[in-house]
């Protein structure tokens, strides 16, 4: 299937149904996204501290959303490189909620299974798992599990830091758990059945 889209995009074809992509992303974004207001000025791409590592600047991503290039957008590493520094958000002359759109795109990419580098999604998922188990984040467990899986080669050079953190008492070896874990899980389970549509 993805193959076909590529062909279509390469041929410059846009189907009527593709044009709903922008609206779909806008609807799924918390708050009022103003995504349709983008004037392609590039303030976001110019402001981004991590733009050099992105395959598309945020501005390009918004143009691609408009063009209905669903799979290309969801394959992009851009949302995953976003560091949520909000420079683009406050500078955007059209008040587009850029950072929140990035969150939406991450969620959509995970659901569509289109983003092939699993480092970032895994980290997020690991984090979420921790929170859903303990109600609090647990840095040591998180970092070691994550690094073991994704940067095993980097672990040795990271050891001094981990060692330092533990010896300075800055990384408890045991996680903390909140008291009303069940209440939290009830809330989250209910929340998972809900989706933002209107």
């Amino acid at each position: 299937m993805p193959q076909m889209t590529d062909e279509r995009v390469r041929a410059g074809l846009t189907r009527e149904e593709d044009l709903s992509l922008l609206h779909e992303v806008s609807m799924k974004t918390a708050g009022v996204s103003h995504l349709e207001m983008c004037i392609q000025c590039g303030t976001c791409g110019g402001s981004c501290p991590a733009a050099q590592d992105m395959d598309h600047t945020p501005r390009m991503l918004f143009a691609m959303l408009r063009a209905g290039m669903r799979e290309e957008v969801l394959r992009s590493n851009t949302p995953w490189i976003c560091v949520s520094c909000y420079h683009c958000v406050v500078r955007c002359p059209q008040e587009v909620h850029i950072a929140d759109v990035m969150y939406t795109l991450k969620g959509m990419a995970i659901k569509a299974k289109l983003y092939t580098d699993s480092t970032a999604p895994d980290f997020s998922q690991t984090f979420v798992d921790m929170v859903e188990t303990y109600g609090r984040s647990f840095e040591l467990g998180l970092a070691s599990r994550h690094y073991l899986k994704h940067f095993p080669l980097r672990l040795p050079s990271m050891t001094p830091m981990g060692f330092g953190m533990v010896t300075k008492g800055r990384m408890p070896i045991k996680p903390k758990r909140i008291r009303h874990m069940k209440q939290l899980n009830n809330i989250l389970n209910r929340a998972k059945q809900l989706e933002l549509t209107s």
Partner: protein
Amino acid sequence: MSEKKQERVGVYVCHCGSNIAGVVDVFDVASWAEENLKHQGVVIAREYKFMCSSLGQELIEKDIKELGLTRVVVAACSPHLHEKTFRTAAKNAGLNPYLVELASIREQVSWVHTDKAVATKKSKAVVAGAVSRVIENVPLEELKVPINPNTLVVGGGIAGIQAALEIANAGFHVYLVEREPSIGGHMAQFDKTFPTLDCSACILTPRMVEAGTHPNITLMTWSEVVNVSGYVGSFNVTVKKKARFVNEELCTGCGICEEKCPKKVIDEVFEAGLGYRKAVYTPFAQAVPKYPVMDRENCTYFIKGTCKACEKFCPTGAIDFKQEDQLINIEVGNIILATGYDLFDARRVSNYGYGRLPNVFTSLEFERLSNAAGPTNGNIVMRDGKTTPKSVGIIHCVGSRDKNFNNYCSVICCMQGLKFAHLVHERTGATVYNFYIDMRTAYKAYDEFYQRVLEEGTLFVRGKVAEVTNAARNEHERGKLIIQVEDTLAGKQRRIPVDMVILSSGLQPRADSKEVGKLFGISCSTDGWFTEKHPKLDPVATMTEGIYIAGCSQGPKDIPSSVAQGAAASARVLDKILQREVALEPIKASVNQEMCSGCRICNGLCPFNAITFHEDLMVTEINPALCQGCGTCVAACPAGAISGTGFSDQQIMAQIDGLLLRNLEPVGV
């Protein structure tokens, strides 16, 4: 209500080609009206292809004469389009023009609805409403008031100067009031003007001199309007002439006082903060009038009580420390407001570093920098006052087209940015970058100028600059200002090190534009620009008769447009003057003093001061010349003593009933 004689109403339903007839069954509407509104007095109902055509109008005129119509309803387009047309037709046939009503079945029906049955039904209701209303209409006569041939022009920038000269040259007297010590406005600060690169002073100063010496112009600089009363034809205006501390009768403008004054002050106004002036000063060499003013806040004598160097050296004894502000009353028939703009405060865009990073300049600063008469004698140098930049970045849309600041396009900044690029290139040979979102070079010879600047090798980057920083990331950037931007056409973020940055700041309304609007009884848009009567067809008139606007006070514009508006406003004024008297729309409120209980509820409601209360008689009176016809007092009067012509309670009530088809014979739609 007294017994009324049956009116004879004619109803005319326009097809407007297929604009109306395509959606509304015009034949059905006409025949329905003739049958069902007969008891209301409809004697004839016709449909016609184009009612506004001369044949259509003749049809109405003929019926008025032959059928003895006393009222006319035309079901066609919006009254804002053709009300005047049909009123004139009625007048031609001897019927009072205010006995004609338009029923809008195009804008309100055929263009906005699709279902033919529904649209036809709604059209019938709209026609029924108009018929019921027109019966309650009364003949009205326009109110005529004489016009004082004197004119007040507020603001001595290029728009105001132009307006004043046009009127003065036509032989009528003008009071030209300017807040600053000299006329000339922003244009006097510029070096070159786009796209022809005329020297700004060379083309402006002859006009300034002409205005300053014109026998028909009374120049009042260092003055402000503090009060306005009256109405079109006879405004009474109070002008505060601020103390200059220089006797204009004696002063020869020799400049010795300025030379001898020991107090140096940063000139925030004319030199945009880049240069100095004395405490007693004329802002620039070609100032009109030539008399200096003394800046009370900074004068050593006013602060410490000693000095008086100016007085000591003045050869004519013109310095007068005892001078006081004067209030001067003038009477004029018309007023033109040309109060100009303020420059957007670029410090608000903190990511561009103006005010924090020394070599970031505003557009007005650059104008002074490049001006041969400016603080650097026209040498384009950095803030240290001596180094010529080797690379310059010019940023467009600063504070404009940005919801965080001003939403609108400031119109002139693109061309201004191109002009700067040319001047920097020509005078320094520096590498010049222009950063823009969209290049807006509309109007004559503007795009050609863009081509020229392209040819000169200016590097254009399409992208709104994200930030200007001095945080270097490598040797290449060290000691420079780094412009960080997405080159949207290359699709890459770039960091461009330059020596100097110029911000093409936007224009914004004067900080006090809302108060000034209130003073003259005109309104401002939410942004603060003065609101014109019609954005396309009446761009220099305002909702208040006799008050006109020109130049940037109405919205951002360049010099040619400002001049055109100044001339346009003066043409409107001359038209008024030459008519000697003006007819006011007869939509006015009036008080039936027999019914007025003297409760004074209405007294505070009128923003035009048309309502006065007679303490002796304990009744209220409305001045018809001041009344603008809004009707607020009519609606408020608990005794029903105030009536509003053209929009009386009877007319509106009848229209409501008609729209609800309450006045039908029991036939049904």
